[in-house]
């Protein structure tokens, strides 16, 4: 289990990360989300021991994370790092051996992962001859070749087409089944929603949201209404509790300040009887992300 307790990092006067705390249990996937420059990479670097925190600590099974735990960690950086002139096998072998694995074991695992991730290429193909998507898969293989207990993935889906993104997503879900702790960052909220058990959202280095994905969504209430009725935008906007109205073809997308305002809107829309659509829903993660990212004052 990974425990992050009151983690903070300052660069001079810049407070890159402030008072960040979360836990990841074995077999759990945590999404760390936030805008560019919000402190995600700095957090990862502290988890990896590449940077010393200004305050707080990172614990692995109640023990301060350090040299001893390096072989337990698998890290996929945001900007992919592979030696272009090396072959797939040389590349994976090097990183596998650096994590303390025996060459025979690495070879066996490499065959498995090449097949499992559907890497298009042979083991002795040079990295530079592979497509971007396949290079990314090789990078993931170097991350997972030693069966890490803690997997840190910085933007694992960036640059992948939908088919490869699905393969990557399945691989991450498989790690949960193996009992690994997985933490990953992504700007793609759909991915986060689909595979995360819990998420932590940070803004300007501070934690602004944390919890189970559904709990977070529920905490905002059903403040989104999709409406198809004879009502005009102006009429809907005049309803108390309506914050914003957007036209989406024949439908209106209405944002409420309070879920209770939905009842008044429903009664107004149905006063003449049948309407084709009235759906009151929770916000999507993406909407919550945008909402929180746009907020000036923190929770």
């Amino acid at each position, binding site marked *: 289990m990974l425990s992050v307790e009151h983690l903070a990092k300052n660069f001079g006067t810049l407070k890159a990360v402030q008072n960040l705390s979360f836990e990841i249990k074995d077999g759990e996937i945590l999404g760390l989300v936030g805008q560019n420059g919000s402190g995600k990479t700095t957090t990862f670097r502290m988890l990896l021991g590449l940077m010393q925190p200004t305050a707080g600590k990172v614990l692995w099974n109640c023990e301060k994370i350090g040299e001893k735990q*390096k072989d337990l*960690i698998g*890290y996929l*950086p945001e900007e992919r*790092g592979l030696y*272009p002139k090396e072959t797939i096998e040389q590349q994976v072998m090097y*990183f596998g051996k*650096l994590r303390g694995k025996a060459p025979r074991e690495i070879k066996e695992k490499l065959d498995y992962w090449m097949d499992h991730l559907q890497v298009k290429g042979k083991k002795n193909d040079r990295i530079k001859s592979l497509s971007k998507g396949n290079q990314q898969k090789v990078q993931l293989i170097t991350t997972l070749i030693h069966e890490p207990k803690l997997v840190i993935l910085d933007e694992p889906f960036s640059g992948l087409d939908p088919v490869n993104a699905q393969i990557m997503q399945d691989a991450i879900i498989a790690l949960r089944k193996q009992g690994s702790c997985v933490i990953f960052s992504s700007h793609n909220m759909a991915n986060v929603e689909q595979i995360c058990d819990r998420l932590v959202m940070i803004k300007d280095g501070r934690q602004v949201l944390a919890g189970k994905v559904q709990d977070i969504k529920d905490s905002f209430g059903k403040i989104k209404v999709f409406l198809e009725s004879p009502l005009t935008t102006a009429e809907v906007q005049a309803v108390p509790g309506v914050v914003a109205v957007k036209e989406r073809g024949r439908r209106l997308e209405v944002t409420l300040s309070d879920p209770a305002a939905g009842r008044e809107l429903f009664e107004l829309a149905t006063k003449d009887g049948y309407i084709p659509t009235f759906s009151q829903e929770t916000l999507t993660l993406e909407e919550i992300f945008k909402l929180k990212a746009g907020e000036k004052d923190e929770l």
Partner: protein
Amino acid sequence: MNFEKLWVIASDVYRKTVKSPSFLIGVFMPFIVVLIGFLIGAIMNRGQETTTIGIYSDQPVLAKALAQQKFPDLKLKQVDSVKEAQKQLQAEKLDHYLVLTQKEGKLTSTVYGEKVPGNTTMANLQQGLNGLQTSLKAGEYKLTPDQVAELMQPAKLEGKEISFTDDGKVKTSKDSSGVKFALSYAACIFTFFLVLTYASLIAQEIAGEKGMRIMEVILSSTNAKTHFYGKLLGVILAALTQLVATGLLVGIAVFIMRDNDSLNEMLDNLHFTGIEPSFIVLLILFILAGSLFYAVLAALCGSLVNRAEDAPKAIMPVTYLMMAGYMLGLVVAANDPSNFIVMICSYIPFFSMILMPIVLANGTAGLMGASISLVILVLSTLVLAAFSARMYRVNVLVYNQKGIWASLRQSLTMLRKDV
């Protein structure tokens, strides 16, 4: 430090280095240089034409005697008159003509031509005339041919080195300073090229890893110190391999050419027996310690830039330092090894690996001096390596776009704060 990971990194660097074109060029370079020199010599010899010189004397016996002498690329031909010589010169049958006169037993001669003959031709003519004059004088003094031969025998001059044994006895050996000097000179050139090759290699490797973000993955697997020392170890092993490979190739080349006369003549003139093993050991240690010193500096500089393309710019200070040592060694120390600046610099780590072998070969510094210089070099390398390993940990995660000095300042600030 995790020695297993250190070895994984070192062997990876070693594998990549010995497979690189610059390593192969480094191994074969001495042979390529010798081969080019040989080819240029052969082409020049082939291009050299025979010079024909007409010999005229109012005493035809003298002209005939001189014309009978044989010289390489020089043909001497007796002519009957100066007019005849000029005619043949105009018709380009002669390149020059020489007028030889004898007054009071002394030979005087003048060479005429559209151009004055080259130095080699003039030297050959001088030698021929000297021989002729000696024969004339021998006849005058009624000397037998044996007496002439004895007279012509040059005085023998030989150099011998002496040293004193523990019990105060004098021990002599043949003069080996020439060979020592040649070896130190060769070591100077070898170290220079070795450092240039490996400094550039290691700096590019590190800058490349940093630029491609591989560094973050590596440092999540092991610590910066292990990575830094692993890189250095790999480079040193590759340099050692190059040293051994070059030595082996020289041995093989000498073996193959063992029947070659000019090689045997050259080897006979080299008195290897007089060289102390300590000189050779010191030479090798200076090459290795010097290469390591500069490899550490290059690694440090390479970690300050963000891309492999910027590595040559980053190691420029290293290259300039090495170049300064090289010039001091080849120009100043080679001509004046007891020069004050050379003496001082042969103890300064940046230059000692180049200068001390030359100073030692010349005898300006003794074994004690060389050992002190080597200890200073090794200690400096260790201190520099320890400092660089600490700096490296910070440098490799600093992506400063404002240049090398800004990166260095930022790294030093972070190091002080122990980021």
